[in-house]
């Protein structure tokens, strides 16, 4: 249907014979009241080496990003307002609540680096794996589907509440949601393509923490990217190193690319929020104290650790030794990255790090 619709496109419209009505009688007199109504005219942005990018448009008043955007309508930034327009529920209207300087560039990068699981993943490279390993990768894929599902649900919860003064962020988040949909798709396909199936769902402690973060988008970013996201990146890296075939290598390397963009935005936003909003660092300290405890519990009780160990160890036997050790080193890397990022963002956690995370630093 869509094919047909798209295919019909323009030429048919141009030659629509039966749409040729009789001669016009009495064309209404145009008012042209809208002419000349612009805040800034004469703008001529030129494409650069990488084309005409979103960030290139930030010239003159069109590039002025206000600290506070009190317009509750859908007025594009820089367009002239029209009085009398009923407000819409845009609850996030301050720059520090969502901004990251890199958002426009990340948006364009996401578009350039798009990939298609159906046709670009070399599915033909999948070969039967030992039963225990197949079960492990399928369990991991199941949990990754839930990670991505949580990410897209929390983003879309906030996206419609973000005002248009900061459209670059909304644009970038549209790509992030699209990436998450693709990750769900790719992990589900991998689980169902090699003689396995999906596993058991997570209990979902961290998912709940993320989805219940209703104190503002910054709070969600803290849990979604700084805690869960940094851990996910550590897992992706381990899985890329341990990939059994080209299909898995393709999936994990592309998920790393996508996820790196999400994390770049997340970390950059948190730094911006801490730098530009007095007291934000203290709020983040409190949030992280709570979040570390929930994260630590999930690391201890969740199934991801065991599934990773079996996969990295090549089976249950190896999972008890080298597999578990490799995984624990990966978690140690996650905690070290987390501490370094906290320091960079302006929320140092080393002194108050929850013991449930601290213990991984020995690996």
């Amino acid at each position, binding site marked *: 249907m*869509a094919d047909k*619709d*798209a295919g*019909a*496109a*323009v*030429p048919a*419209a141009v030659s629509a014979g039966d749409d*040729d*009505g*009789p001669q*016009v009688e009495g064309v209404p007199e*145009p*008012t042209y*009241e809208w002419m000349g109504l*612009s805040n800034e005219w004469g*703008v001529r942005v030129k*494409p650069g080496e990488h*084309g005409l990018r*979103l960030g290139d448009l930030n010239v003159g008043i069109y590039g002025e990003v206000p600290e506070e955007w009190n317009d509750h309508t*859908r007025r*594009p930034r*820089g*367009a*002239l307002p*029209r009085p009398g*327009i*009923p407000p*819409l529920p845009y609850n996030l209207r301050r720059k520090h609540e969502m901004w990251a300087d890199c958002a426009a560039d990340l948006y364009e990068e996401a578009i*350039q680096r798009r990939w*298609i*699981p*159906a046709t670009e*993943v070399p*599915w033909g490279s999948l070969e039967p794996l030992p039963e225990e390993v197949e*079960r492990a990768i399928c369990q991991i894929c199941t949990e990754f589907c839930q990670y991505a599902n949580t990410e*897209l*649900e*929390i983003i*879309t919860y906030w996206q419609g509440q973000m005002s*248009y003064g900061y*459209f670059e962020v*909304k644009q970038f988040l*549209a790509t992030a*949601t*699209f990436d998450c949909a693709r990750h769900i*798709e790719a992990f589900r396909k991998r689980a*169902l*393509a090699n003689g396995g*199936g999906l*596993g*058991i*769902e997570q*209990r979902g402690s961290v*998912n709940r923490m993320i989805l*219940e973060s209703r104190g503002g988008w910054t709070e969600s970013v803290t849990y979604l990217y700084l805690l869960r996201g940094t851990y996910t990146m550590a897992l992706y890296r381990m899985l890329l190193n341990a990939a059994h075939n080209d299909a898995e290598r393709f999936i994990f390397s592309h998920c790393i690319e996508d996820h790196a963009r999400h994390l770049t935005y997340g970390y950059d936003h948190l730094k911006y929020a801490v730098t530009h909003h007095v007291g934000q660092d203290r709020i983040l300290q409190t949030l992280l104290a709570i979040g570390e405890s929930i994260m630590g519990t999930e690391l201890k009780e969740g*199934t991801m*650790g*065991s*599934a990773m160990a079996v996969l990295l160890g090549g089976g249950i036997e190896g999972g008890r030794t080298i597999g578990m050790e490799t995984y624990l080193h990966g978690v140690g890397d996650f905690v070290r990255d987390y501490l370094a990022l906290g320091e960079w963002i302006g929320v140092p956690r080393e002194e108050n790090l929850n013991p449930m995370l601290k213990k991984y630093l020995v690996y």
Partner: protein
Amino acid sequence: MSEAPVREQEHELDTSWMDQMGEWGIKAKPGKRGLTLAEIQIGEYGELPETTDNMTGRPRGATPRPEAYRVGAYGVRNLSEIWLENATFLYEEALQRQWSSATDIPWHTIEPLPDDIEEAECLLCTFFNEVEFVAGDVPARWIAKTSPDFFEARHVLIAQVMDEARHMDVFRKRALANGGGLMRMSGATSGFIGSIDLARDFTEMSTRLHISGEGAVLTMFRMGELMGQNDAEKRMYRLCAQDEARHVAFGVMHLRFLCEHAPERRPEIECYLDEAEAQIMAGLQNPAGTQAETSEALAILLGGGKAHYDEGHKMLLVIRRRQLKEYMKRVQSAGFGERFENGRSSIPEQYAAAY
């Protein structure tokens, strides 16, 4: 690694999950178009519940865990409320047809235009920016409300949000690329009662957004060969039309599914269509509508300047008629064509009068 400390008891391997997997032994194979979502709708993984009690965000077919948190708060849990038969196709097509406004539009073909034409183009771009805002914000709101058991339909909506972000960006780029700028906002997309924004039911929203709203815009985009003054604009409209056709197809196919699986909702849907039709020509949301100032801009673009306004206006009437005709076809295809024969709809009259 060899110096790893002795692991605590808690790091011992628990493999109880291995005995709690979903249906096992699934081997989906790539088809002619690769390994699409349709190819993995097999066994229990392809079974769609009429009503779902999945409130934990569990992937369809995975084993439920009794102690999992109910974090979903999903309001859309009935298949008929969201489903469409070709969701997998539309999603895969959206992935295949993504494009980049930065590099796929031949921006170098833009040449300075006469002031009246540049202003008309910029007014239209300002308007389309607002329209694309709605079409991105509103579907996004429904994604987290929909059960992941219906993820194929949800994925199409996510692809739509991505498409709309790109449309918004391409129209902003055009407005700022040729010596013009953004103009005064229309305000036509605000939250009036009965608008796309405020709908509290998915099908109501989809009827307004996909069938009447985006349908009218799709007709406009398809006329891009006439409106466009250069290859950049023509390509911009062509690519947007391609995306928009998918969004409209979602609405039509969803309405068709609802019509077949929840016929008791027909009278309610007819009411939404009544409201949409009352607005389709007179409403400000339609850039070619009778009350919209964008209509003047369109007449200038179609005619080739203010000096040829009358010719442009005549072509605008062709667009209006085409909008109505295409709308009727979509509603017929969705299973509600009777309204055009039994006198309920005013569209046939509007069509006859649109000269």
